[in-house]
C-alpha cells in the first residue's frame, strides 16, 4: 500500500512547484470513504498555502471535515487524492515511518482531550517529543518548558493527578518542548471551562509568537479564531469564503 502511494506521488513530484514562502501547502486535496451507499465525500478539492509563521484557524461546524483536514495535513492520514507539502516535502512520497520522522522533527500537537500518556509523569510526557526527535538534555529542556507553562512544581505528578487546565498546560509544554516549526491544535479549549480556556489560549499564543511557530488550529469558536492571522471556513468538506491571501496557489 505504501509502495503504491510512493510510486504515484513520485510521478507527480516533478510537476510540483512549491510555493516559495509557504510552509504548508494543500493541493487539490480530497478524501472520501466507501460506504454501503456509495462513496461518501469528506473533503473535496481543498487548495491553500500557509506562509511560515502564520497562524490559521480552520472553522466549521462539527462534521464539516475539520479534524480530517488536520489529520491529512499532519500526515496522520492519507488523502484519497491531491497532495500535502510541508516545508517543501511531499507527504505522499513518504511511508508512515517517514512521516513519523517528519512529525518528530517538525510538528507539534495540542489535542482537545489533551492525550497525555497516563503511565508517564507530566515531565516524562513533555520529554517524549524531545527524545523522539533525538534532542540533547531532554530532561532539562522539558523541565524548563514545564516551568514556563507554570507547572514547575508538578514535574513528577501523573496526568490523573492534574486538573483539566493543568493537563492542557502540560500538553502545550509537550507541544512546544521540541520547538516545532508547525503546531496543530484541535479544539484546544473544547474540554475546558471558559475561564480556564481563555488562559490556555493566551498561553498558546504567547508561546506561538515567542517561538515564531506556524499554527493551524481547528475550532468552531469564532472568538478563538479571531486570535489567528487567517481563517479557513469548511462546510461539508469544501472551503467557503476562501481567504484569497492563503488560497492563492499557482497550479
Amino acid at each position, binding site marked *: 500500500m505504501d509502495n503504491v502511494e510512493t510510486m504515484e506521488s513520485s510521478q507527480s513530484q516533478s510537476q510540483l512547484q512549491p510555493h516559495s514562502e509557504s510552509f504548508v501547502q494543500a493541493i487539490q486535496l480530497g478524501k472520501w470513504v466507501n460506504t454501503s451507499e456509495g462513496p461518501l465525500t469528506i473533503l473535496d478539492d481543498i487548495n491553500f498555502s500557509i506562509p511560515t509563521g502564520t497562524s490559521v484557524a480552520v472553522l466549521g461546524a462539527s462534521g464539516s471535515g475539520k*479534524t480530517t483536514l*488536520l*489529520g491529512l495535513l*499532519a500526515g*496522520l*492520514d492519507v488523502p484519497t487524492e491531491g497532495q500535502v507539502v510541508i516545508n517543501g516535502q511531499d507527504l505522499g512520497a513518504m511511508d*508512515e*515511518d517517514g512521516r*513519523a*520522522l*517528519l*512529525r*518528530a*522533527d517538525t*510538528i507539534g*500537537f495540542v*489535542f*482537545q*482531550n*489533551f*492525550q*497525555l*500518556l*497516563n*503511565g*508517564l509523569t507530566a515531565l*516524562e510526557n513533555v*520529554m*517524549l*517529543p524531545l*527524545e*523522539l*526527535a533525538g534532542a540533547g538534555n531532554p*530532561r532539562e529542556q522539558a523541565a524548563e518548558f514545564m516551568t514556563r507553562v507554570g507547572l514547575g512544581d508538578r514535574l513528577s505528578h501523573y496526568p490523573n493527578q492534574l486538573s483539566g487546565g493543568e493537563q492542557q498546560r502540560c500538553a502545550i509544554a*509537550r507541544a512546544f518542548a521540541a520547538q516545532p516549526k508547525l503546531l496543530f491544535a*484541535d479544539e484546544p479549549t473544547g474540554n475546558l471551562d471558559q475561564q480556564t480556556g481563555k488562559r490556555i489560549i493566551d498561553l498558546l499564543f504567547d508561546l506561538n509568537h515567542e517561538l515564531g511557530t506556524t499554527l493551524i488550529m481547528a475550532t468552531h469558536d469564532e472568538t478563538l479564531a479571531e486570535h489567528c492571522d487567517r481563517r479557513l471556513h469548511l462546510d461539508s468538506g469544501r472551503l467557503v469564503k476562501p481567504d484569497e491571501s492563503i488560497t492563492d496557489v499557482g497550479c
Partner: protein
Amino acid sequence: MLWRDWRGGELRILAIALVIAVTSVTSVGFFIDRVERGLNQQAAELIAADLVISSSRQINADYVRNAEQRGLTLANLTRFRSVVVAKDQPQLAEVKAVTEHYPLRGELRIADVPYGEDRVSHTIPAPGEVWVEPKLLQTLNLQVGEKLQLGASSFTITQVLAYEPDRGGDMFSVAPRVLMHADDVAATRLITTGALVNHRLLLGGERTAIDDYRAYVKQRLQPGERVLSVKEGRPELRAALDRAQRFLGLSALISVLLAGVAVATAARRFAQRHLDTSAMLRCLGATQRSIIRMFSLEMLWLALIASSVGCALGLLTQMGITRILDQLLLISLPAPSLQPLVLGYATGVILLLGFALPPLLALKHVPPLRVLRRDQTGAPVRAGLVYLGVLLSMGVLLYWQIGELQLVTYVVLGMLATLMVLAVAAYGLIKLMNRLRQRVGVAWRFGLANIARRPGSSVIQIVAFGLGIMVLLLLSTVRNDLLNDWSRSLPADAPNHFLINVQPDQVAEIQAFFDQQGVHKPQLYPMVRARLMQINDRKVSTDDYESDRAKHMVTREFNLSWAAKPQVDNTIVAGKWWQTTDHGKGLLSLEARLANTLGIKLNDRVSFDINGALREFTISNLREVDWDTFNINFFTVVPPGVLEQDPASWVTSLYLDPQQKRQLSQLVKRYPNVTVIDVAAIMDRVRSIMDKVVMAVEFIFLFTLLAGLAVLYAAIQANQDERRFESAVLRTLGARRPVLMRGLIAEFITLGALAGLLAGLAATALAWVLAAQVFHFPYQFNPIIGLAGIGVGIAIVGIAGVLGTRTVLTQPPVVSLRQGT
C-alpha cells in the same frame, strides 16, 4: 449471541482458559483413576484371592465353615521350605501345596520345557505330580518327566511352572518353587510339630461379602494369624499413588487457579464492553432478570462446550502420561472410567460461575440512562463479591481433589501465603525496576512505565508466570543438582555391589573367593526374615499410625541380624550395647529413627513372627545409622546365640573396581543362588525412573505454563484499547514503528525477566528446603538456576507478549484525533 460475542475476543480467552483448566484436571483424574483400579486388580492377583487368612497353624475350622455358609469360594494353600533330592543331589526349595480352585485371582502359567512358550493352566498338579520352576531343573540337571524325592514321597515332574500370581517380587526368596497337590502333603511326613509352615485360606467373592467376612475374622484373630487383603497389598505403591494423586491434583489445581485469574480478567472486560448493550436492552424494556438470564445462559453454554473440549484433550493427555510411565508401573492398566468426566465438567462450570459471573452480575445494575450519557456506568463490580466467589470455588475444587478438610485448609492457607509472598516480591521488583526509568531511553521508559502503571495486573502476570517457570526449573535443573550433590556426598570407595541370598554354608567359600581375587575380605552378615506383630503386648496395625512411612514400615518384613559388636558407622544414642554375658538373650538393638517413627522406646517389648512362631525381644539400645555409606546396616539387630537355628541368608556389600568386576561372572556361575546387585546400575535405573516421572509431571506442569499464558493474554486483551490509543498518540508525536516495537519488547522482556528471577529465587529456596529437610545433605547454590529462569521468562513472555500486542503497531495515528482517553 454466543457467536456474536465470540468475535469480541474475550470469550475466546474465557474458553481457552477453561479448556486448559479442564484438560489439566481431567488428565490427572483419568490417570489416577486408571492406576488406582489397576493397582486394585493387581493387588488381588498378588495374594491370588480377594482375602487371605494366613496362620502358622492349621486354619481354624470355624473360619472355613463360616466362609462356606457365606457362599465364598475357598482354596487352601500350605507353604514350607524343604530340601528336595534328585539323582542324590539335595536342593533347598520353597514348597507350595494347593487345593482345587487355586489361584482364585490371577492365573497359573505353565510350559512343557524350561523357558518354553507358556500357557494358562486351569488345573493344579494331580496327586503324585509336581510342577517346578526352571531354576530347579537346571540346578539338579533334571528333565520334565523325571522324578524327585520330597520327604518320604516321590513325585513325577509333569510341567514347568512359568508364573504364579502370588510369587511376589521379593528378592530375598530365591529358593525355587515346587508346586504340589495338598492331598500329598501328609504322606511326605514333612509337616511335623515345630516345622516352619505357613497355612493359608484363600477366599473369593463379592466385595460386600468379603468385607463382612473380614470383619468377622478380624474379631477372632489369634496370635500367629493374619488377614491379608487387597488393601494391604503393595503398601509402598499405594502410598506412592496417594502422594502422586495429591501432588498431581495440586499442580492441576494451580493451573485451574491461574485459568480462573484469566477468566476473571477476561470476564471483567467482557462485562465492560457489554455495558452499552445492557443499557440499550434496559432502555428497550428488558428486566434485570432477563439480562442476567441471557448472560448466564451464554456462560453456561460456553462452560459446557469448553469443558467437552477439555475432557477430550484430557483423555488424550492421559494417554501420553500413561505411555511414558507404562513400563514403570509394571501393571496393566484398565481402560479409563467415565468418572473423571464429572470432575472435568464440574471444574468448567464452577470456574466460569465462580470467576466470571460476579462481574457479569454487575451488568444488571447498568442504568438505562447510559444510552444518553456514556459516563453512567452504574454500580461498580463489588470486589468482595468477586473474592468470595473465587474463594468459594477454590475451596469446592480443592475439597473435591483432596477430600480431607484439614488438608484443604492447610493447602489453601499455604497457597495463599506462597502467593502473597510471591506477589509482595513481584510488587517490590516492579517498584525497584520503576526507579530505573529515569536512566533509560524513551522506548524502555515507556515499556517500564507500562508495567508500573498497572501494578495489580503486572503482579498477577509475574506471579502466574513465576509459578509456571518455577516448577519447570525445579523439575529440570534442581533435580539434577540434587542428584549430583547426593552422588558427591558418597565416598569414592563406597561399596558399589551387594551380594544377597548367600546360604550359610557358602559364607566361608565366598570370603575365600574374594580373598583369592585380591579383594578385601568382605564381612558377611546374617539376616532372618520376621514380621512385627506386637509392641508391649499390643497388636500392631497400620491404623495406629498417621504417617505413610510408619504405615509402610509396620507392614514390611524386617530383617533381623545378629552381631556381637555394633557396626563402625553406628552410634548408640540410648541404652547400652550387649556384653558377652547377654548373648543368647532376647534383646534387640533398634535404629533410632525407626523407633521414633513407630513410637518404640527403650525397654519396650516387641514380638516378631519368625517363620510362623511368635518371639519376644526387649529393646536394649537405640542406634543412629549413616545409611548413605552403602555399608550393610540393619534396622534390627539381636545378640548372637538367638537366631542361629532359624533359616537365615547372608548379605554383604563391597567395592569392586572394573577389573575385579569381571570376576563376578565366575562367582555367579559357581553360586547360582547368590544374587549380585550392581549399585551403579541401580543408580542408573533410579535416574531413568526419575526422568520418566519428571517427564510425566512436566506434562501436567505444561498446563500451568499454558494457564500463565492465558493470564498474560487476558491481561493484554483487557488493556488493548488503551494500548492502541496510546500507540496512536505516540505515532502522532513522531514515534516510528521500531521505537514502538522496542517499547513493547522492553515491557515484556522486563515482565518475563522479573517472573523468571522470582521463579529462580523461589526454586532455589525450595531446593534448599528439600535438600536440608527431606534428603539431608547440604545443597550447593547454583546461579545457573536464576539465569535459566530469567532466560526462560524473557523468551516465553517476551515472545508471547509482543505477538499478543503487535497489532497496536499498525494502529493509524489519526485515531489520536478522534478518541478521548
